[in-house]
């Protein structure tokens, strides 16, 4: 027990550093995937057939294969196959590759949620906006968007909470996120070796963070409760 209390501050410190990297990956993914997903959803709904077919094909491939494979391909492919390691070495290179893989993957998931949301808005809303003289973009931003947001909050919050846990997949390319940090105490790190509890303890971080997000999303849902779609 005394040993645990001695180890705890060291482990805590190290897990915090790892979790910061986890959070950075999480934040960067959202920052990129939320808008990119919207673009992809427009592409998949395009009246220009070649564009919508190609976009849907990409979405199908990305959603139909494991994120872990995508991570590995994106990270190793340029170096091993082209002989051009575009990501650069070290932690920053791994972070960049992971971010690109996560953004691409999550943008495809988000795009399907957006598409479902946009297509679920009754055509009458567009027609009413049109006969009132609103332009296409006014119709989207002033009439449709908030209704879409309201509809997609529940599926988006599911997806975003999944993302919290999915960030651990970046461990496979040795990104030094929290799982990597926890695991390091098994082999030995900061003078601590042969300990598995730090790895298990990382679960607490995920739990607290996804709990926090759940509360935030519930608030947002409440905020949008004043109208019905």
């Amino acid at each position, binding site marked *: 027990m005394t040993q645990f209390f001695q180890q705890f501050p060291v482990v805590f410190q190290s897990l915090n550093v790892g979790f910061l990297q986890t959070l950075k990956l999480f934040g960067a993914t959202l920052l990129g995937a939320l808008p990119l997903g919207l673009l992809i959803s427009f592409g998949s709904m395009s009246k220009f057939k070649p564009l919508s077919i190609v976009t849907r094909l990409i979405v199908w491939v990305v959603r139909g294969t494991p994120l872990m494979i995508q991570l590995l391909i994106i990270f190793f492919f340029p170096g091993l196959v082209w002989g051009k390691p575009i990501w650069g070495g070290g932690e920053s290179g791994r972070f960049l590759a992971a971010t690109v893989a996560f953004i691409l993957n999550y943008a495809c998931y988000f795009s399907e949620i957006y598409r479902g949301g946009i297509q679920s808005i009754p055509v*009458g809303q567009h*027609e009413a906006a049109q*006969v*009132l*003289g609103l*332009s296409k973009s006014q119709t989207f931003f*002033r*009439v449709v968007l908030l209704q879409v947001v309201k509809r997609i909050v529940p599926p988006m919050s599911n997806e975003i909470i999944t993302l919290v846990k999915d960030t651990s997949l970046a461990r496979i390319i040795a990104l030094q996120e929290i799982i990597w940090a926890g695991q390091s105490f098994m082999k030995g790190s900061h003078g601590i070796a042969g300990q598995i509890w730090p790895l298990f303890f990382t679960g607490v971080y995920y739990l607290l963070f996804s709990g926090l997000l759940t509360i935030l999303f519930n608030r947002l849902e409440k905020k949008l409760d004043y*109208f019905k779609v």
Partner: protein
Amino acid sequence: MAILEVENIHKSFGKSEVLKGISFSLEKGNVLSVIGSSGSGKTTLLRCINFLETADVGRITVDGDTIFDSDAPSTLSARERRDKQLKIGLVFQQFNLFPQYNVLDNVTLAPRLRAKERADYKQNKKQIIGEIEVKAKELLDKMGLSDKLDHYPCQLSGGQQQRVSIARAMALEPKILFFDEPTSALDPELTGEILKVIRELAKEHMTMVIVTHEMTFAKEVSDHIVFMDRGVIAEEGRAQDLFENPQSERLKAFLNNLKN
């Protein structure tokens, strides 16, 4: 001169021709009702005039200004087309209010966005918005909704929603207001309040085109009736004449069917 002239409108969906050459005209301040059995093309006609569908053939003139002509492909910009389109307003069967806006904002949204295109908008913003709100409140007052300005559509009855949507259409000051079965989505006891509003508008000489299944109402409020059957106007005339003295077999059959 007629305020609305519709000439030879044809419209097909795929192989089926839904409108087979519709022509009629309407005098300023008059009310025209369009009646006819289900599937005869009434809604399609309204949608063609309101640019929700594009007619295959035909010409539509409002107040001397050709707003649609299939022979002269339009070279107008999207904005010019919108300006022309706003000469007419449309009230939907399903109201189609914007759920996230309260009653007042539903009515002012379009005028406010439109005002932004005015050259003097930046300088006189406060005054312009103020005027729009005053006018919207007047309209809503007329609709008996003064105490509902900050309510959201989900908090209103169907009849109240439809009255908001009428105010919303009127706020853009259309020269002609179109209604597509404005009471069909309402419980019978709420129908009356909408008919009352339309009756009032008719008294104020608002030019209106109303698609309706309420024959008694159509007869009472309309100056002119158009009876549609399978994509053509089978008969038209003064309300009184048409109902009391139908000429065509089709109209006779239609009116007889209603009685039974």
